[in-house]
C-alpha cells in the first residue's frame, strides 16, 4: 500500500472538531460562532480553540462586529482554507481508491 496519502494528510484539518468546522464552512459562505457551536454541540472554549488554530493556519477569517448592540463573531473559509480542505478530501478519496479490492 502506498503510504504517501497518509503522510500528506493535513493535521490541522484532520482533528475531529476542526474538520467539523471546516466542513460546515465549506457549505456556507459564513457562519456565526453560535451557529457553529450549536450545530456541532461543542462548548464555547472548544470552538474558540479550534477557530484560533484554523485562523493561525490561515484557513479561516474571523470577523467581529456588533448587531443590535450585541457582539457578533462570524467565521468564513479563506481561499487557502478552501484549497487545503479540497486537498484533504482528495487524499481521503485516494485512500479509499487504493484500498478498493481489484
Amino acid at each position, binding site marked *: 500500500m502506498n503510504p504517501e496519502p497518509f503522510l500528506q494528510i493535513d493535521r490541522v484539518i484532520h482533528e475531529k472538531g476542526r474538520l467539523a468546522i471546516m*466542513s460546515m464552512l465549506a*457549505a*456556507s459562505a459564513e457562519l456565526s460562532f453560535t451557529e457553529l457551536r450549536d450545530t456541532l454541540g461543542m462548548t464555547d472554549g472548544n470552538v474558540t480553540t479550534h477557530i484560533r488554530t484554523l485562523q493561525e493556519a490561515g484557513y479561516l477569517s474571523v470577523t467581529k462586529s456588533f448587531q*443590535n448592540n450585541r457582539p457578533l463573531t462570524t467565521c468564513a473559509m479563506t481561499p487557502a482554507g478552501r484549497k487545503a480542505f479540497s486537498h484533504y478530501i482528495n487524499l*481521503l478519496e485516494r485512500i479509499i481508491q487504493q*484500498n478498493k479490492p481489484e
Partner: protein
Amino acid sequence: MESNWAAEHLQVIRTLMERSALYRRALAPIMIFNGVVGLAAAGLGWALKVGSPHAFILFWGAVSVVALTGSFLLVRRQAIKESEPFWSPPTRRVSQAFLPPLAAGLMIGIVAWAKGGAAPGNLSDLSGVIWLPLLWVMLYGCAFHAAGFFMPRGMKIFGWVFVVGGCGLFAAGVPDWIRPLDCAHGIMGLFFGGLHFAYGVYLYFTERRRHEM
C-alpha cells in the same frame, strides 16, 4: 480498515455540509402564529360576509401581508436572541425557494382582482372564483416543497399535503349545498389556518425534544 476510516470521514463531512446548509430556526412559533392568523381571518371573513371576489382577494391579500410580516419579525427575534445574523445564507436560500410560487400566487390574485370587478356573470361572485383559493393552496404547497430542500424533512411532506389537498378539492368540486362564501373562507381557514396550527403544535413538541437532547 484505512478505507473504512476514510469513507467514514467523508460521510461525516457530507453530513456536516448538508446540516450547515439547513435552515435551523425554530419553526413552531412561526407555524402557530400563521395558523392562528389563518383561522382568525377565516372566521372574520365569514362573519363579515366578505363575499365579493374583490373584497375576498383584498381581504386575504391583507392577511398574507400580516402573516408574512409576523413571520419575518419572529425569525428576526430568534436571530437577535441567538446573536446570529438575520439574513443568513440558509434564510436567503429558503426565501429564494419560496419566492417563485408565492409571486405566481400574487400575480394570479392581482389578475383575478382586476378582471373580477369588471366581469359580469359568474366572475362577479365567489362561486366564479372558487378556484382561486385552491390555486393559492397548491402554489403555497409548491413553495413549501421547494423550501423543504433547505429545511427539515417534514416541510416537503407539509408542502405535499397542500398540493394533494388542493388538487383533491379541485377535482371533487364544490357541492351545491355549501355556499361559495363558506367554501372559499373554509378552504383558506382549513389550509392556511388549521394545517399551520396543527403542524405548529406538532413541531412545538418535537423541536423542544430535539433541543433537550
